[in-house]
Each structure stands twice: as C-alpha cells, then as structure tokens.
C-alpha cells in the first residue's frame, strides 16, 4: 500500500496556494475606506498607496521576490517529502517555513509600525481601529490632520498559520510512517 504524508501534502499545497494567489496577510486602511492610504502587506507583496500615490521601497521588491521563491521551494520540497516517505532523511524537506514566517510576520509588522510611529509620528495599531491625529507644517501655520485607521489580519494569514501547524504535524507523522512502512531499500 502506498502511503503519503497527508499533512505534509496539505501544508505544501497550502503554501503553493498562498504564493501563487498572493493575497495580503495584513491590511491597513486610512481615511474613509482607505481613500487616504492603504497598505496591503504579506511576505510576497508590499503595496502602500498614500493620497493616491504609491510609496516605493526598492529593497522590499527584492525581499518579497526572495520570499516568494523561498515559499515555492519549501512547498515543492514538502510535497516531494510527503509523497516519498521511505527515507527518514526526507524529513528535512518537510519545511517549517510557513510556521516560522507566520509567527514572525505579526512581530515584524509591530516593529515596522513602532518605527513608523517613532519616525513620522503616525500611530497605527497592529489590529483594530484608531483615530490618528498628527500635525503637518503649512505655510506659516500648522495643519492638524485627523485620519481614522482600520487594520486587520486576513484569512490568508490564518491559512499560512494552518499550513505551518500542518507542517509541524507532518514532521511527527513522517516518523510514524517511517516506522510502519518498510523501507524500499530493504524490500
């Protein structure tokens, strides 16, 4: 009987889905319905538009490209190791990348927002709603700007977390499969 690591397969295909159909993991909308600014952030894409014009950070493009590649490779390795479960060594290919990235992601968002508050004085919550007030220098006077901000974590982030947990289970399940399945080498 051919055995596959079902948890690994699910994790691998979830990772592929997350990369190939990139949806934001975290969204911030400023003003009414994001008219003033919106930020769509995930490890694979970064889009910030402020007052109708995009904010471009060159390094982010290359980092997200690397991140996309890393996830695709992790997904392919995980799917491969979930189908070929004869070798104990293949456990190494059951990637925990989705788990580590989905744990690190909100931490990095929080750090990024703390830096933004420190540098430009704009307070944005990691999750929830807030009314942000800040001053802009005008022509000999200061303008006070009020901006309602809404941020939320999307279903894609939850899928990434699920993919990560599944990969962790897949690693344990791999051990079980190896113990119960005779090695091809020995057959």
């Amino acid at each position, binding site marked *: 009987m051919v055995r596959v690591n079902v948890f690994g397969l699910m994790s691998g295909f979830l990772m592929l889905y997350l990369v190939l159909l990139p949806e934001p993991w975290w969204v911030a909308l400023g003003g009414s319905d994001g008219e*003033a600014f919106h930020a769509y952030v995930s490890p694979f894409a970064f889009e910030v538009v402020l007052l109708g*014009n995009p904010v*471009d950070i*060159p*390094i982010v493009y290359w980092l997200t490209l690397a991140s996309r590649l890393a996830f695709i490779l992790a997904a392919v390795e995980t799917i491969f190791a979930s189908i070929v479960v004869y070798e104990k060594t293949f456990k190494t*290919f059951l990637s925990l990348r989705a788990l580590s990235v989905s744990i690190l992601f909100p931490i990095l968002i929080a750090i990024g927002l703390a830096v933004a508050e420190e540098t430009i004085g704009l307070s944005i919550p990691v999750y929830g709603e807030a009314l942000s007030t800040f001053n802009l220098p005008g*022509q000999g006077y200061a303008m006070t*700007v*009020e*901006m309602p901000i809404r941020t939320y974590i999307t279903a894609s982030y939850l899928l990434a977390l699920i993919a990560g947990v599944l990969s962790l289970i897949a690693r344990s399940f791999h051990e079980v499969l190896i113990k119960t399945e005779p090695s091809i080498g020995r057959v």
Partner: protein
Amino acid sequence: MRWYVIVVKAVETALILAPIVYGLCLYGWDVQSMMVPSYKSPGMGFSIGDAEPVLFEDLTVINVSVTNTGECPITVTDFQAPVLYRGNKVGEAYLRYPVSIPLGETTYLIIVVELSNATLSDVVVELPGRVRVELMGLVVEAPLNITVSIGTFLRACGGR
C-alpha cells in the same frame, strides 16, 4: 545527513539569495539607498481671496472666495470664528453649509455673521477661526483668519 540533502539545501539557499544579490548589484551594494522610500506627495492647498460682506436672506454673511490650488478635490466642512472688533468679541461667525471645491476652481464660502449689540465705527473686524477641510478621506484642520473692512461691513449690515 546525506550528500543530496546538502546539495538540495545549498541550491535552495542560492536560489533564495539570488534576487537579493541581484538587487544589491543593481544598487551598487548600497543597502542604504535600497531602503530609502520614494514617494511623491500630491499637492494640497487652497488660497483665500476677497471677503465681501452682503445681506442674504435676512442674514449678514461674508462671501469668501476660496481657490483649490492643490491636486485633489476638497470639501470645506466647517468654519467657526469669533468676530473681533478692536480685539473685543462682538459676535460669532460660522460656515453656512459645506462647500466642495474641484481642482483649480474657485468657490465662495458663505459665512454667517451673528453680531451682539455693538457699535462699529472704523477700521476692520477680524474673524480668527479654524477651517475643517475633507480631502481624500482625511479631515484637515487649519487656521483661517478673515479680515473685513468696516465700511463695507456696515453697509452690508444696514448701518448698524
């Protein structure tokens, strides 16, 4: 660890690092320049023109011309100010209704003036207030001082 695992992991690492290295090469390995955000802010602004007092539907109002000099449409939603004559408060002024101003266009704000009993004779009245403007979902509040000469003001008020 088997040799092919090491080879696969090494190739994987190289593939992941390749875009970052390529990006660094494009920027001459200047990491700092890669981290600098580039952004062109749209212009925001409006200029205040003439303030002309008139009698309008039994109200004393001041027509203030405002030109949208920015790059996005704005809506003036509120203006509140005390009416000051020789430094003393002699009344209140407020925006009659919100006014939308498209790009590059000039529109009049109708500011209603309610005076308490006061004798006005010379120089000017001042309206040192704050204006609230909505643009692209933002609410911007800025100081707006309007000065009207008494002569034209008295004529508008019917000689009070």
